[in-house]
């Protein structure tokens, strides 16, 4: 069915400068290779430290098809294990989160401590004397590391360190947390889970679609702010930018049309800082932390305009920590966690939640229209008589800076090319 059938290598021939072959999104054998070469090789985002804040806390996550338990042991250390009993393979962790000193398999009662070792095997007398529980604890993921409380895992034994992998994208993880005067975020508000019948790579960074896919959002912003500027943030004449940070990481920079001022209506998805006691208290705490009102506003704007994709599976957008879960070439789940800020009045976080729900989730005013487009993409791509998609927007007009960062107009396809170039490299 595809141009690549029967070929062992050559996926990179599916990506050319300025165009991409639709098999990249539709071919199931390519998806299997993506799991192996991207999701089971590179660093992927797993969990945030606030999800396992206390000793004994655990959460259940996934990497591709692997079910993973992230647990903070009674010794305080965070570990990640494959959620699979060493005996017959049953999952040992049933719930998405909780607190437990041990995980007990429901099949034959094998019991593991929350640090991983097998500590109990019922009726042990029928095993031989060389049967050693010490050899068969829960299998840890080969590598686990964190940056500012964001835990990433790599299923490869060796390779670049996490900080090497993150590269320039680490700066935007910093910025995301800096709307908090304590530089702490918490994923304490739960998760909004959605799915769509389409390829995981559609969940990218696209500054071009906003005026069309999200026309209703812009209409509502204009109604709310009384200012037609809200419609002009994502055009070929807007000052906003698309940025290729290298390594597949990329971002939209919407900060150039964003103004932060207490009480001032805004097109930001998070909404304005309220002109209330809570709003003024928040601003005062930010000025205390960052030194001046101008710098406090800059940090707030920086955070809400981060809009970064940390390749391959993490996005930080506005208040959202968005995690992409690839399940087949044509089926994807997206988990959105609204990040609560540490050290702020409750009203500030409550407004973040309401702002989050306004755009995001399965009944929001923005994300469902993206989902609709992704599903129509997947259907359209089945018609591969002419299989090439055009991604040449801004190809020669974008600026390549001395440090290798590529910067284009907000409607340029700099971001898509950034991700597909990395895809090509990973899939070699």
């Amino acid at each position, binding site marked *: 069915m595809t141009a690549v059938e029967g070929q062992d290598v050559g996926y990179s021939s599916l990506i050319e400068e300025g165009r991409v072959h639709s098999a990249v999104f539709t071919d199931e054998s390519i998806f299997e290779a993506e799991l192996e070469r991207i999701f089971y090789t590179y660093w992927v985002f797993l969990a945030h430290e606030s999800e396992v804040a206390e000793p004994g806390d655990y959460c259940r996550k996934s990497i591709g098809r692997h079910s993973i338990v992230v647990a903070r042991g009674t010794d305080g250390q965070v570990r990640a294990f494959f959620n699979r009993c060493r005996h017959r393979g049953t999952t040992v962790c049933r719930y*998405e989160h909780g607190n437990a000193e041990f995980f007990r398999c429901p099949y034959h009662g094998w019991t593991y401590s929350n640090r991983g070792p097998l500590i109990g095997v019922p009726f042990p007398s029928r095993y031989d004397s060389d049967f050693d529980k010490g050899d068969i604890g829960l299998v840890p993921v080969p590598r686990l590391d964190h940056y500012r409380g964001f835990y990433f895992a790599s299923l490869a034994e060796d390779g670049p360190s996490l900080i090497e992998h993150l590269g320039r994208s680490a700066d935007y993880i910093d910025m995301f947390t800096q709307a908090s005067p304590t530089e702490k975020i918490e994923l*304490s*508000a*739960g*998760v*909004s*889970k*959605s*799915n*769509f019948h389409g390829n995981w790579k559609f969940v990218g960074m696209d500054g071009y679609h906003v005026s069309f*896919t999200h*026309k*209703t959002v812009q*209409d*509502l912003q204009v*109604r709310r702010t009384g200012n037609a500027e809200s419609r002009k943030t994502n055009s070929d004449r807007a000052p906003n930018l698309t940025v290729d940070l290298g390594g597949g990481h990329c971002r939209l920079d919407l900060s150039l049309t964003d103004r932060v001022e207490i009480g001032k209506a805004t097109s930001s998805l998070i909404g304005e800082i309220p002109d209330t006691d809570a709003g003024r208290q928040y601003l005062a705490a930010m000025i205390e932390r960052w030194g001046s009102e101008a710098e406090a506003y800059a940090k707030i704007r920086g955070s809400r305009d981060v809009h970064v994709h940390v390749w391959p599976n993490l996005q930080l957008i506005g208040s959202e920590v968005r995690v992409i879960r690839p399940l087949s070439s044509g089926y994807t*789940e*997206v*988990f959105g966690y*609204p990040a*609560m800020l540490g050290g702020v009045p*409750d009203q500030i*976080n*409550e407004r973040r*939640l*309401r702002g*989050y*729900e*306004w755009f995001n*989730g*399965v*009944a929001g*005013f923005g994300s*469902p*229209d993206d*989902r*609709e*487009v992704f*599903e129509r993409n997947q259907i359209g791509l089945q018609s591969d008589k002419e299989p090439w998609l055009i991604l040449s927007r801004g190809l020669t007009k974008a600026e390549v800076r001395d440090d290798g960062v590529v910067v284009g107009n907000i409607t340029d396809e700099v971001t898509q090319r950034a991700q597909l170039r990395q895809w090509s490299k990973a899939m070699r």
Partner: protein
Amino acid sequence: MSTVAPSPAELREQVNAFLVHEADLADRHRYDDWLALWSPDGIYWVPCNEDDYDPARHVSIIYDDYGRLEERCFRLNSEAAHSQDPPSRLCRIIGNEHVSHDLVGDVRVRANMILVEVRSGEKNVYGARLEYMLLPEGDSFKIRQKKVVLLDNDEPLGNLTFLL
């Protein structure tokens, strides 16, 4: 407010008529007529992950005050809400109603809902427990709170942009 309080049987009948009417407006995408059923202090709540919690501290699928409900209906009435173009075909049954009065005179209703949605070649069935707080007005009501507890509110969901 000189009306005589309805008997329990009359109240149940009024509530049933109201819920059937509301369901019909939602099924037929009559957004403005549906919005007119709401009290200006109304809250439309579809919890996420759990059935009950403090919505100030936990994300919801929907937590609309009246202003946002009005935005929701404005959006759905526009031509560009792609996720409802074409609109979902909807059919719901409301049943197992339990009606009571609370201390301030609002009518509390608990009910179950089965909703079938057809769109884009897919059929989805949603089960939910409904909780209403209704403000009596003449022989009908205004909605002060509608809470829709979906059975699968902790699962990955698709497109819930129609009225629940």
